[in-house]
C-alpha cells in the first residue's frame, strides 16, 4: 500500500528507511568519501578531550539517508529542494530510522508538486534531523 508520487495525497507516508548500526568503520569511510575530516567523527581521543562521551555521526551522513529516501521514491531529477536541520547529536553505534510524510500537494507554474516532511530518529526516540523535500510529480 505504499504510495507513488502520482498517487500520493496529504498524510501519506513514504516507505521507511533504516540505516545502521553506524559503526566507527562507517564513520571512517564517510570521512574519506565526503572529505569531512573533522576529528569529532573519527577520533575518540579527540572527542573525549572536548567533552563528548565518544565520536558522533556526521550530520551529512544522516542527511544522505533523506536523499536516498526521496530520490529513490521520486527520481533524483524530480527533486527540487532537500533541506535538513540537525536537532540532536547522533552517537556512534546508533541506527537511524527515516520517515517521510506528504504535507502538501499543489500546482505551481503548471507543475504538480509535493512537499514532504522528513524525520530521522534513533532507537531511544530522539529526533536527530528534521527536514523537508520539494518534489516535482513527473
Amino acid at each position, binding site marked *: 500500500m505504499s504510495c507513488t508520487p502520482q498517487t500520493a495525497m496529504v498524510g501519506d507516508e513514504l516507505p521507511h528507511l533504516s*540505516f545502521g548500526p553506524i559503526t566507527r568503520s*562507517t564513520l571512517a*569511510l*564517510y570521512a*574519506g*568519501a*565526503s*572529505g*569531512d575530516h*573533522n576529528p*569529532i567523527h573519527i577520533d575518540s581521543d579527540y572527542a573525549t578531550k*572536548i*567533552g563528548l562521551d565518544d565520536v558522533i555521526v556526521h*550530520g*551529512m*551522513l544522516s*542527511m*544522505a*539517508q*533523506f*536523499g*536516498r529516501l*526521496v*530520490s*529513490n521514491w521520486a527520481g*533524483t*531529477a524530480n*527533486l*527540487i*529542494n*532537500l*533541506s*535538513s*536541520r*540537525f*536537532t*540532536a*547529536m547522533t552517537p556512534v553505534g546508533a541506527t537511524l530510522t527515516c520517515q517521510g510524510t506528504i504535507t502538501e500537494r499543489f500546482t505551481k507554474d503548471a507543475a504538480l508538486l509535493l512537499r514532504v516532511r522528513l524525520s530521522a530518529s534513533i532507537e531511544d526516540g530522539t529526533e536527530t534531523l528534521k527536514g523537508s523535500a520539494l518534489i516535482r510529480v513527473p
Partner: protein
Amino acid sequence: MGVFNRNVTGHVSVPIAVTLERGALIFFAETIGETNPVHFDILSARAAGYPDILAPPTYAAVVGSQADHAARRQGHGLTSTLDLINADYRHVLHGMESYDYHSSFFAGDQVTVTTEIKGFSDVKGGKLEIAHISQKIKHPERGLLVEISRDIIHQLDRSALP
C-alpha cells in the same frame, strides 16, 4: 561576543574548479548505503539514459567541500570557508543544510564552485552564533546545477546545545 570573524560578511570566493570523479562518486554512494545502481554502476547508469554515474543528492556538499580543499591547497590568499570565518573546530556544529536543485549532476562533470558568506546571527541570548553560508555549483553548459545554503553554529556555551 562571538568568535566568528564577521568582517568577511558578503565575501564571495573566486570560482574554484572541481571535477566530479567517478571513483569518488562510487565510493560515496556505497558508503551512504545507496542501493540504486545508477549511483555506483556505470552500465546501470547508462542503461537508465544517464551520461555517467548519477550523483546522489547530498553529493553537492562533497563538491563544495572539494572546492574548499582545493582553495586551501592552491594558496594565493585562498582558504577554506571555516578558516575564513575563523571557526573554532572544537565548538562548531552543523545547524542547517539545504539544496535547491536545478539540474542533476554526474561523474565527469567539470564544475565551478563559488562560496559566499551571507552573514551572521546570534541566538539564545548570545550562547550560539550562526554563520550563514551559500555555495553555487555551476556547469559551463548546463548553468547553475545546485545552490547550497548552510548554517554553521558556533557553540559558545555548551549548555545551550539544541
